[in-house]
Each structure stands twice: as structure tokens, then as C-alpha cells.
């Protein structure tokens, strides 16, 4: 019976090798330093964040989020502009802005942050980042001590907003860009990076805003939502960004903090004004706007992880929230609108017709945002009740399909409506006659005239009022239907302090971030 012993020994050896190796695990090992590991689903090259160099694609998001870089101006949670590296600014004329910079700031390289360093940084930015160059439209920069003068090629009322964009992080260009690591002015210094894997930060002992509370922070790129959830539960990460909705219930207890805020990422539908589209009929557009149950969509399908939308922008900014009047969910009202316009169900199949044409809505959307297919299904259900048949085309090829105006009636999409806190961006991208993404060919002379005023208006209060007027035009024409805004959540262990979400989604790591 020797073979029995042999077999038993082999089996036992195999199992114990695995268990013993596992017992060697010591994830709590520490050398006494205060450290934090954050798991993040978004810090990766697929998101155009391969490193932390703000001049490279969208890597400025990582630079500002992880406390490496800071901008001249920052946004409040109402997306209002606040001083940061610039203490004050003044609009000298339509083309000229004068900034006074803080006098107590040094880069992590040791160099003093003065106007010459900022000039060098901004010049490098516009030479290397086309998006920034197009936004900022800088003609010339002058530096004198802590005074910085920026001249633009055309009147640029939103220049301040654009300077708060993550690409506007002020870095020491002379310190170089080795491995995508830069020398910023923030509370933490990047020391090691491996794209799509991790970023290591150490505290900036000379930070102008006070000594950071943590010695070391590691950002782990974890692309799988379930893995991120498991890693937070096992304690391998103590804070998480980008957790999937379905995991939230696991963390709604005393062991964790959940910081939530409404962002300007909006889920909305744009109507097709092509004469062959049923949406060319104003009554159909109005009925669609009245037939989408936003409250139910947010409460049931998004499980409360959103806010019903009214206009283009969320509540918070002077031009956002319920300051504009939009259609309310009203199925009976929608039915009356359709009947008055001649859309009647003559054959009793539940779908209305007019002049022999069925009221069929070709609803185009895409799967990469988990909320969009859900929105399509919600709209399909409620619009059926008013006699509309919604045919969903949920495709990753949406950008090609949307170019064919015969292929869709409603294009449901997601977009960050005011990434820099300025309202003009949205109208010039989606709604004005020459907007780059106005694929539905919506035309409004009044909207174009208001945009012309907005593009030259420097007074923030007047800009806000113009933005409200423009939203009302869009809503009155039922050219778009705004369904919900994303509620962003950041989750951390209960002993992690000041891991707080912000409306702009930028300032994740601050000097106050701590572990108790």
C-alpha cells in the first residue's frame, strides 16, 4: 500500500504549499509612516491619463486630482471661480487679463513660482496641447515678478474658467517630464508611476498650504468594478473612486464613508430636426419631453444615484437647476398634445398614426455609459403609454450612425455640461447653428443671437442670465430633453477623513486628507 502513502503525501504537500504561502501574506505591514491606498477605475491610458503631466492629453486630471498640481483659479462646489495660485485678477480690456500670483509658493523642484515660471508653463501648454490652445486663445504672455498679463487673440470672457481646467496646472517646465512625472505646487509629489498600474506620492514638506497629513499615498488603477469593491472590503485599498452602482449597498454602513455630490454629467436626448424625422413635428418633441419619467428613472433604474434634470445644468451655478421651466412628466397632457396635432391610433394597435405614418421613434444610444441603455428602456416603456413605439439602437458605432440623419430620431447621450463652470461651452458644442455636435440640425435664430451676446459678455451675472435665456429657448423648442445628472460617489473606510467629492470632480487628494 506504498502508493497510498505516496498519494496522500503529494496531496498534502500541494495543499499545504498553497495555504502556507497564503499565510505569509501581511498586507498591514508598515514602517510607521501614515499611508493611504486609493483604488481608482479611471486613472489609465484608456482615459487618456497615462501619467500626471498636465500638458499631455487629459493627464491633467490625474495631476490635479492627486494633489500634485494646482491651477491659478479653482472652482467652488457651485462651480464659481475662486482664487488659488492667483490671488486676484482683473480684466484690463476685452483682450487683456492681469493676474497677481501668490508670493509664498515653490514648486516641488524647489523653484519659486513666479510669473516667469507660469508664463513658461502656459507657453509650453499651448504648444503641446491643442485642446488647451483652442480653449485659451492666448496671443501673448507678459511676466513681471508676481504679476502675469495674458493677452488673447479674441475677446475671451471664459478665459478664467478655462484656466481652472486640469490642463492649467502650473508646473515647473525646467524640472522636466521624465516618465510623465512633473514638479507641481500641490501637497503631494509624484515619485513613481507605472501606467495603468499605480502612482506613488509622497508628502510635499514645503507645501504652501500647510503640512500634508499623510506621508505616502498610492493610487492603484483597478479597472474592474467588482475587484475594486473586493479590494476596499479586504482593506487593500482604503478609499475608492469609480465604484459600480451595484456595489454601493455593501458600503452603506458604519465601516465606510460615502461622499456624494451632483455633477454636471448629464444624460439627455437630442431631437432630430430632419424633415423626414417624426421629431420634426413640434408636438412629437413636446410629447417626448412630457413622456419621460425622470423621477422614476433616477429612483428605480439608477437606484437613487442621480438627480432628475430640469435644464441643461444642475442646481448650484447661477445658471443652473430649476431657474428655467421645463416640461413635467404628464402622460395625459402628452396624449392631448399628440391628439391635437393629429396623431391618433386608428387601427387600435396602441401606436398612433398620422397621414398613414406610424409614430415610431428611432432611439439611438450607446452602451459605454451604463445609464444610457436603462434610460432607453425607461423611455420605451413610458412613451408606449402615449402611443409611441420606441425602437432602440444601442450601438458602440453611435458616432457613425448619428451622422446619418435618417437613422435616428432621438440621440440619447451623456456629457459633462459645464466642465469649467462656464455655460457657453455647451451651447457652442450642441445647440447653436454652427455647433460641432448639432447633428440633429436644430436651428434657432434667437439662440444664435443670444450666443453672440454671450461670447462678448464679461460680467458673470449677465453671462448667467444669458445662459438661462438660452436654456429656455432650447427647452421651449423641445430641441433636447434633459433627463438626469450623475451623482458622483467616493467611498472610503470610516477612519479615512476628508476624502470628499467635489462638483468639478477634481480635488480628490488635498493636504487635509488623513487616516486616523
Amino acid at each position, binding site marked *: 500500500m506504498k*502508493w497510498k502513502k505516496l498519494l496522500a503525501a503529494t496531496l498534502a504537500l500541494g495543499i499545504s504549499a498553497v495555504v502556507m*504561502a497564503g499565510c505569509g501574506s501581511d498586507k498591514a505591514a508598515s514602517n510607521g509612516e501614515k499611508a493611504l491606498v486609493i483604488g481608482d477605475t479611471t486613472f489609465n491610458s484608456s482615459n487618456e491619463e497615462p501619467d500626471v503631466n498636465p500638458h499631455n492629453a487629459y493627464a491633467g486630471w490625474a495631476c490635479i486630482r492627486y494633489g500634485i498640481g494646482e491651477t491659478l483659479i479653482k472652482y467652488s462646489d457651485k462651480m464659481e471661480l475662486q482664487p488659488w495660485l492667483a490671488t486676484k485678477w482683473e480684466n484690463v480690456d476685452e483682450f487683456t487679463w492681469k493676474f497677481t500670483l501668490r508670493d509664498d509658493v515653490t514648486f516641488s523642484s524647489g523653484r519659486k513660482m513666479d510669473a516667469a515660471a507660469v508664463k513658461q508653463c502656459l507657453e509650453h501648454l499651448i504648444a503641446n496641447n491643442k485642446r488647451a490652445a483652442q480653449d485659451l486663445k492666448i496671443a501673448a504672455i507678459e511676466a513681471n515678478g508676481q504679476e502675469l498679463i495674458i493677452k488673447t487673440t479674441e475677446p475671451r470672457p471664459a478665459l478664467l474658467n478655462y484656466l481652472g481646467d486640469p490642463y492649467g496646472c502650473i508646473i515647473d517646465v525646467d524640472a522636466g517630464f521624465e516618465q510623465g512625472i512633473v514638479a507641481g505646487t500641490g501637497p503631494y509629489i509624484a515619485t513613481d508611476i507605472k501606467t495603468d498600474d499605480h502612482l506613488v506620492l509622497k508628502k510635499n514638506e514645503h507645501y504652501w498650504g500647510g503640512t500634508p497629513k499623510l506621508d505616502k499615498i498610492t493610487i*492603484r488603477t483597478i479597472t474592474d468594478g467588482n475587484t475594486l469593491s473586493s479590494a476596499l472590503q479586504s482593506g487593500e485599498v482604503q478609499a475608492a473612486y469609480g465604484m459600480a452602482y451595484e456595489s454601493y449597498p455593501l458600503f452603506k454602513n458604519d465601516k465606510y464613508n460615502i461622499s456624494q455630490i451632483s455633477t454636471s454629467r448629464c444624460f439627455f436626448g437630442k431631437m432630430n430636426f430632419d424633415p423626414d424625422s417624426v421629431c420634426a413635428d413640434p408636438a412629437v418633441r413636446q410629447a417626448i419631453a412630457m413622456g419621460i419619467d425622470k423621477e422614476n428613472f433616477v429612483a428605480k433604474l439608477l437606484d437613487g444615484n442621480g438627480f432628475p434634470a430640469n435644464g441643461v445644468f444642475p442646481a448650484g451655478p447661477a445658471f443652473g437647476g430649476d431657474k428655467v421651466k421645463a416640461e413635467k412628466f404628464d402622460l395625459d397632457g402628452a396624449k392631448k398634445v399628440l391628439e391635437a396635432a393629429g396623431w391618433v391610433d386608428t387601427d387600435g394597435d396602441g401606436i398612433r398614426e398620422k397621414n398613414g405614418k406610424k409614430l415610431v421613434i428611432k432611439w439611438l444610444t450607446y452602451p459605454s455609459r451604463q445609464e444610457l441603455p436603462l434610460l432607453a428602456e425607461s423611455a420605451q416603456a413610458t412613451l408606449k403609454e402615449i402611443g409611441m413605439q420606441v425602437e432602440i439602437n444601442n450601438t458602440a458605432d453611435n458616432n457613425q450612425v448619428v451622422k446619418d440623419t435618417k437613422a435616428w430620431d432621438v440621440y440619447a447621450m*451623456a456629457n459633462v455640461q459645464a466642465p469649467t463652470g462656464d455655460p457657453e461651452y455647451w451651447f457652442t458644442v450642441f445647440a447653436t447653428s454652427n455647433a460641432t455636435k448639432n447633428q440633429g440640425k436644430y436651428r434657432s435664430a434667437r439662440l444664435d443671437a443670444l450666443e453672440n451676446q454671450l461670447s462678448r459678455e464679461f460680467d458673470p451675472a449677465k453671462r448667467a442670465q444669458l445662459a438661462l435665456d438660452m436654456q429656455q429657448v432650447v427647452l421651449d423648442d423641445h430641441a433636447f430633453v434633459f433627463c438626469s445628472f450623475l451623482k458622483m460617489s467616493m467611498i472610503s473606510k470610516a477612519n479615512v477623513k476628508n476624502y470628499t467629492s467635489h462638483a468639478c470632480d477634481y480635488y480628490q487628494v488635498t493636504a487635509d486628507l488623513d487616516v486616523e
Partner: protein
Amino acid sequence: MGAITSMNYAFKRLIQLIPILFGITFLSFLLMYMAGSDAVTEMYSNRGVEVAQEIIDERKAALGLNLSFGEQYINWLWAMLHGDMGVSFVTGENVLKAFLRKLPATLMLTGLSIALTLLISLPCGILAAIRHDRGIDLILRFGSFMGNAMPNFFVAMLLMEFLGIQLGLLPVISSGTDFESALLPTLTLAIAMSAKYMRQVRSAVLEELGKDYVLGAKARGISDSVILWKNVMKAAMLTIMTLLALSIGSLLGGTAIVESIFMWDGVGKLAVDAINMRDYPMIQAYVMWMAIIYVLVNLVADLLYHELDPRIRLGVNGK
């Protein structure tokens, strides 16, 4: 003479690789093209912020994405025939370098998984065969049935929950390619493979145990262990080796789901990321790698089979 035959055979099989590579790279390119979207669109879509069309068009033109399908494929093929596999559309990194950088992690996971699979399935399979239809056999067969029934990602979730979260024994996310980080993905892969091989080993050993030569050996007073290890296992190894060859082939391609779940930085995860981002050059490199390893691994298995089994070598059926 035998060596020359084997070399001829290997040479013919390698020649066959050329049309396979052409066909498979063309098909994968076509499928990705038909799936719609492209790397630039995906990247901007991920950000959720609209940018000027001019910027998008410029970026696409720089990557050659503005060209027709045929032009894109021919350009890629021409460069590849000159030894240039291109750069990743997403990271800008040289495709070959990126691939080779991630390959050791996959090789390590493959080696460990195969080793653990053998460590579990061989003794269990043999034990089940020797004690067939008795208690231990039924338990092992039930375990094997369960292991086969559970998909990899489910096993991964279970292991994460119990060994990572509840017991805190193993890390759920890998930190490089250290042994500790490799344990959970290795276990995940080994459980599924062991379940399959345990049954195969059991069947192969049972079949051999029922043959006349075993009865004869026993009658001659040869010990059970000698019969088992020197005769039965030698014969059963042919079946096991064929299965292992196929598994090594698929494992060397990276186990996409397991690598992604555990953040194991191998070629499987690389492939998943590349497909999600429509990173054509990276996908093509992966497809070529898969084709090559399948052909090579099967070729090696055939040659070994040829050497190990005298019936094949001598051209007789053994009866």
C-alpha cells in the same frame, strides 16, 4: 531516418502557419472594423466631454484611422512584414515591446497554474481511479463536477470573498508579479483545470488498470505501486499530455478574464484592454501570438507523442 521525418513534418507544419497568420489577422482586423468605433472615439467617449471635431480628425489622421479598411490592413501588413508591429493607438508604446514586457507575467501564471493543476489532478485522479465507485471516488467526482460547472470569474469571486475578504489570507489585487499576488489567480485557474483533468486522469488510469497486462503483472506478484507508476501511468500519460498541451496553449494566450479580475498585468489583460479600446495594432499582435503558440504547442505535442508512443512511431495500431 526518424529524425528527418520529424523535421520534415515540423517544417510542413511551420509553413502552414503562414496562411493561418494571414487569414487570422485579416479576420480579426475585419471583425474589429465591423464592430464600429475606433481608438480615438473610444478615448474621447470615455472622458465624456465633447472636443472639437478638428482635434478628433487630426488625431485619427495621425493614426491612419481616416483611411479605408483595405488601406489600413495593407499598411499594417506591410509594416509587419518589415518587422514593425506599430505602436499602440492608446499608449503610444511600441507594440512588440509592450507585448514582451507583459509576457513574463503570463508565462509565470501559466507555469504556476499547470504545476498546481498537476499537483491536484494527478493524485486525485489516480486516487479516484484506484478507489473507483467508492466513497472517495464519489466525493472527488462530485468536486470535479462542481469545478467544471463553475465559470472562472465565479470561482475568482468566491476565492476573493473567502481567502481575500473573510480570511484575509491572500491579496485580491496583484502588486506586480510576486508569488503571493499570483496565488489567487493561480488557484482560480487551477481549480477549473484540475476539475477537468481529474476526470481525464481517472478515466485514463481506469482504462489501463482494466487491461490484461495489469492482471498479468499482478499474477506475477509485481507490487501495485510498481504497476501503477511504471506501467499504468506511462500509458496514461499520453492522454494527459495531449490535454496539457492544449491547456498550455490557451494559458499562454493569457486568461483574459482572470488576469483582468486580479489586475494581473499579463497579455490576457492587455488583449481585453486593447479590444475595449479598439487598439488594432495591439489586437493584431495578440492574435498573431495566439496563432503561433497554438500551432507550435500542438506541433510539439505531436512530436512528443510520436516519440513516446512506439505504436505511432512504428506505424502499427498496437493490437
